């Protein structure tokens, strides 16, 4: 009887020792491992999704023809070649057979990002878009002036009219008006995406 009791006690103690020294910590580590597995599965799912999306985007990018890509790069170049822009403006005027009186280029600037915050819109950071303004003065008839504007609007890259002024009576050279012409002052702005990321 005494022997059996000792065996039972030993078995019970062994069981409790196993439970507390092996099973309980192992179960805790198992729950950690399960969390890890879940995390891995989620990460793997996201990685697979990202790779699939990236492949899809690469396929879309590759589907863009070289001509379209060239048109996009012309429309939004990575930097403003101001001499080329001035040459193109002059070409537009030459096509319309109107001489430019003066054309100057301002210093390059950077557009700031506008975010709507409490109290109204606020400039926050660099948008990555740089610009350069071109001041042009010329004399033309009104209809020709409109065709020049139409040519500027349909240019391969945007030349945004930021300021335009003309008067029926020229105070400096009144003789201009006698020939049915007016003096126009035009401020055009060219853009480039210098920092796309």
């Amino acid at each position: 009887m005494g022997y059996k009791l000792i065996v039972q006690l030993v078995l019970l103690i062994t069981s409790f020792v196993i439970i507390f020294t092996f099973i309980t910590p192992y179960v805790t580590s198992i729950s950690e491992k399960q969390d890890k597995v879940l995390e891995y599965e989620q990460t793997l799912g996201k990685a697979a999704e990202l790779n699939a999306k990236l492949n899809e985007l690469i396929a879309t990018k590759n589907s863009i023809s070289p001509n379209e890509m060239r048109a996009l790069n012309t429309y939004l170049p990575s930097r403003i070649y101001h001499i080329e822009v001035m040459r193109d403006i002059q070409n537009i005027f030459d096509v319309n057979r109107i001489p430019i009186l003066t054309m100057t280029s301002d210093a390059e600037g950077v557009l700031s990002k506008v975010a709507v915050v409490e109290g109204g819109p606020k400039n926050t950071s660099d948008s990555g878009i740089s610009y350069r303004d071109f001041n042009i003065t010329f004399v033309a008839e009104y209809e020709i002036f409109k065709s020049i504007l139409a040519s500027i609007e349909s240019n391969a890259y945007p030349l945004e009219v930021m300021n335009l002024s003309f008067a029926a009576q020229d105070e400096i050279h009144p003789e201009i008006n006698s020939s049915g012409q007016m003096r126009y002052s035009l401020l055009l702005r060219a853009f480039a995406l210098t920092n796309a990321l």
Partner: protein
Amino acid sequence: MADLQKQSSFIPQRPSKGNVKPKRMRKIYVLNYVTYVIFFGTLIVTAGVFFFGWSLDSQIDTLAKQLDAEQSVFNENELANVKILDTKIDTAEGMLNNHVSVVSILAAIEQSIVGPIQLLDFVYTRTGQSDAPLVSLTAETDSFNTVLFQNQVLAANGIIRGLDIQNVSLETKSIDPANLALGNDQFVSLKIMATFDTAAVNYKGARQFQSLEAPVDMVEASLDTDNSQLEAVGDEQISEVVEDEESVSSNDSSL
């Protein structure tokens, strides 16, 4: 006699001890069973937990290998290129949407200026790429009625978002009493400030705006028809006149 009767009875006088088996009491040690159950249960659970943990480890290894494979497939440079292209397309689209057609603004002003109004100067301003274009016009006209009518016409123009007529004043060119009495030298000067809806006057919208001019085309077409009819009538009259002249000349020659 009584003793004989007692001796001849088959009924045992007392229970026979030799035939009755002693009742055996089985001792059940509950604690013993519980102990074994706990012990072997612990061993089974230990084995199960160990194998489950081992399978989780191998699963983690497999997942880690798969993740490594996905990472090796992932091309960071391609992602950067795609991001640049995406930003470029978005920016270009935004610029195209904000690219204002000044020609369409001029066309809208031409359509909206009615009555005897003389425009003296025109100033178009745009402060930012996403800001609405502002047009300032200085003009002269003959009366306040014209100014009021002009205000109504401009306000009815769908692409003008904000309209303000400022600096309205009545002025006189000379102080000739005769002209003053007739009101000939008087004029009203004004300044028209109009803000245009960027969406309506952008380069893409301007094309839609031009397509809205179909009724005008129809009117022009009907006018052309009228002109051709007039020309036809004119030709008939001319031919009649020519015939008359010819007949007159022939009469003259005959004379």
